[in-house]
């Protein structure tokens, strides 16, 4: 079907020349970024280099002052946040954004909606299969969860929107090694399910292992882009920009 062909070839996100500011401070200096269906892309860079700001700019939470963001080929640079993410994007923010006054069940259910093509691949029971810990704590309030459980809840909540793309910002940060491992295995499940991701994480080794493509950002500029084999073959590059 022609619509299928165009759907598969049009990038999920195509950002061109993004310049983003917080007040007077100029943070992003012309970011270009393309994400295709099913792609797992890492966004690497030291603290304060603009990774979070890039993710926020893509979905209009911190709208760029210059540049364009096309979602599924449609220019949505000036659209409202909810309209942008309704195109099939889910955001897992750094601070997790759990609703403390809602139960685990409500945190998940309130987000439920069909995906952009009416797909409903992730009903509640499917999400709970992926997170048995949440299934045991459905009646807990958001603020009664441990850090790891909160992280599972944000990812689960993202899946409830049946997204084509998930933006994962520091999903393993501050978690114990065992919990990190289980978050990474969830990320692999997400990848296997064909959902594209942009992953920001400090665990570069695991990140390179899972990513199809890596982007390094330095002071609001993309300074490197390539697949993991290529990046691993250039250790001085990682050394320079990420200090590993």
């Amino acid at each position, binding site marked *: 079907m022609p619509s299928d062909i165009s759907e598969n070839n049009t990038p999920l996100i195509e950002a061109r020349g993004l310049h983003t500011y917080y007040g007077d401070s100029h943070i992003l200096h012309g970011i270009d970024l393309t994400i295709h269906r099913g792609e797992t892309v890492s966004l690497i860079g030291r603290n304060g280099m603009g990774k979070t700001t890039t993710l926020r700019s893509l979905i209009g*939470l911190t709208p760029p002052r210059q540049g364009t963001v096309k979602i599924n080929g449609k220019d949505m640079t000036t659209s409202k946040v*909810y309209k942008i*993410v309704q195109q099939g994007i889910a955001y897992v923010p750094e601070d997790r954004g759990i*609703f403390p006054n*809602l139960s685990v069940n409500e945190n998940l259910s309130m987000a439920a*909606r069909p995906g952009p093509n009416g797909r409903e691949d992730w009903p509640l029971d499917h999400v709970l299969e992926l997170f048995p810990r949440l299934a045991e704590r459905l009646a807990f309030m958001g603020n009664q969860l441990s850090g790891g459980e909160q992280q599972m809840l944000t990812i689960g909540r993202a899946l409830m929107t049946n997204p084509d793309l998930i933006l994962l910002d520091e999903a393993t940060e501050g978690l114990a090694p065992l919990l990190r491992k289980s978050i990474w295995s969830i990320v692999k499940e997400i990848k296997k399910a064909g959902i594209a991701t942009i992953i920001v994480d400090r665990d570069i080794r695991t990140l390179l292992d899972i990513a199809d493509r890596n982007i390094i950002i330095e002071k609001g500029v993309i300074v490197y882009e390539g697949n993991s084999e290529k990046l691993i073959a250039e250790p001085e590059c990682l050394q320079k920009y990420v200090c590993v």
Partner: protein
Amino acid sequence: MELSFYLIQLLNGIQFGFLLFLVASGLTLVFGIMDVINLAHGSFYMIGAYLAYWLTGIFGNLFLGILLAIPLAIAIGMAVEKLAIAYVYKKGHLHQVLLTYALILIFDEMQRFLWGNDSHSVDVPNLLSGSIPLTDIQVYPVYRLFISAVCIIIGIGMFYVIQKTKLGMRIRAGASNNEMVQALGINIERLFSIVFSLGVALAAFAGMIAVPVDSLYPGMGDNILIISLVVVVIGGIGSIKGAFVGAMIIGVSSIFGKTLLPDMASVIVYAMMAAILIWRPKGLFQAI
């Protein structure tokens, strides 16, 4: 004075508390969830009352009058939200207070223009005009019981919507993290206008059913606004449960105040508020 006298005062206080709850619950939701101070909230109580009075006059039946007044009041509420309140959501409390105070003046002036300065009243409909004997000599009007019953049903309905439905979950989520709600693909502005319209509809409805027990007079919305603000502050801003408890406390104490200490009546609710705020500076309950 005998016990049945106090019983009647108590029932009156509870019934007034229920009405206050309808008005205050909308006010506390709009304040707590949207962070919008709407001083014109009491005007909707007045608008509801006058619409019911006007339509009852035309059709000769209070129930029919109320039935027709409800959609009108909701339409006015939605128009006010779209044309005025929506512009000050993010502008801070000073803008909101100035704008909604201006709305009070406009509504009060329109009331005088349309219905004049005289006070009006509407008879209790025949169906509910009876009384229930409490003792050999004391009776209690059925209509007041009817008001309480209707308010209980609405209260339960509101509780259900907020606690059990997806809309309610989203409203509660919006109260704690508005940005995250948007990032989940939810149109927060529409959610806000639903909350606002629901709030003013409740206030207007309270004004409508109160018409047979509370006369209509210019400025009636301002009185209810002030007392509702007291209820909201006592109960805790944004808390429906708090609005209920606060409304009962204020409803009962103001009725008892009026009959037992008529000289002090106007002070009693404020004394009550001061006492509760000394004890619990943030009000009795937390936001939903």
